[in-house]
């Protein structure tokens, strides 16, 4: 479900926790460097993204289930992680400020 202005996206909780920070929306067009502490927003699992996860503050995954490889890695590292957040890579702009409330299964897009 997407709400306008301060958008709230919903998904499935993989690893609980709350984290607030800058979104890094991964994709072929994004070549800016990943900053330590960024929230990684990805379309699907890929070892390239898993490597970024080691420096990430949280993970928001658009597709993939509980056992998606990247979600397992997020669980090991212990960062808040949500999956099946529909349209996350479209609804969240690269560099925008977002809040991952994994305990509630919500991502708040502040701007």
């Amino acid at each position, binding site marked *: 479900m997407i709400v306008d202005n301060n958008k709230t996206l919903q998904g499935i909780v993989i690893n609980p926790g709350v984290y607030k920070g800058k979104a890094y929306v991964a994709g072929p067009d994004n070549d800016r460097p990943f900053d330590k502490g960024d929230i990684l927003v990805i379309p699907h*699992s890929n070892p*390239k993204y898993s490597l970024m996860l080691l420096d990430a503050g949280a993970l928001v995954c658009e*597709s*993939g289930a509980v056992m998606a*490889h990247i979600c397992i890695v997020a669980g090991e*590292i*212990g960062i808040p992680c949500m999956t099946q957040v529909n349209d996350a890579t479209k609804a969240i702009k690269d560099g925008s400020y977002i809040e991952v409330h994994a305990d509630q299964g919500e991502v708040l897009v502040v701007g």
Partner: protein
Amino acid sequence: MLDNEELLKGYRESLKVAWGYNDYEDWPLRISSIMHLFTDVFAKEFIEDLNAIWDEENGPQQLAQIFEYPGRLFRLIDVVIFGLRRARTPLEEQRQFVVRMLRAAHTLKAGDLFNKNGANLLIHPDIPPKSSRKQGDSNLIHKLQAALFMYTEAILFRGHDAVKTVHGPYITADNTAIVIREFHNLSPTELWPSSLLINHKKITTVCEYMTSAEVKVDCYDHIYHSGKLNQSLLSWHVTIDGESVDTEQISAFVDALIAKTRQVSGIVDEWTWQQKTEKYADIFWFRKSPLRELRGLSSKVPDHVYETIRNGKPSEIRSKCLSPREVAFLIQLGV
């Protein structure tokens, strides 16, 4: 021991969970879209080898010895079944195969075959004594496990059951939970040049968690947890090729794993779908190589399989995600 019907029923149930929770956006390409190019040959060889070594008395033990871990046996079943179905193998033969694999897995386990209680308990787990386990450095230990997971995915794609197993939780007298992650065959030079691989064969991590982490392991070696693993770690023990290692060695090793993962995944990302599929075939044959080699036969992919891949194309129908209903239908068809 469960009878054949109970085994098949338990297997169907376990598949529903595993397939329902798994990822369909596979890296480096969706495996279901290319399996038709080699799994019928793969399954035919597997069944031939299995039948050649099987005798009703010692078959389960022998097969278990070859593959060592129950999760490895479980994970081979559905890919062989996929190939058998493509070859229109009679349902009774498919069922016989599933039952044999499950009976072999059963001989390795101390607990429920399908881990219905959330524990993957092996008969003789090697749990280091409390005195040899270390405390602290939870982030580093979990980073190591994450890096190992990434590395095994990079070198074996979705076939990493051949190099990875998770078992436990073993509940201790202190009411804590021990989970063991074993990463073996870590340097498969049959698949990659040695320059792309780490120099070690086996790494084992033993982690003692608070029970509040609520760790569970299913029969496919998937680990689930409701609590945070890195905040629940009480003690740990890590060995590389059988030797205990300290945090400095672990840190250096994590860096090496990350570098290798970056290198291999970067190479694979540049490949065409045919190259990725050929490597997938190599990985599948590597997965079953212990069985083939026991018979003194070559464990290499037959040349005609590569030709089929080069002349074939990915299945568009199988490139899409399956709905839960379609998954349930496929499971019924299979076994």
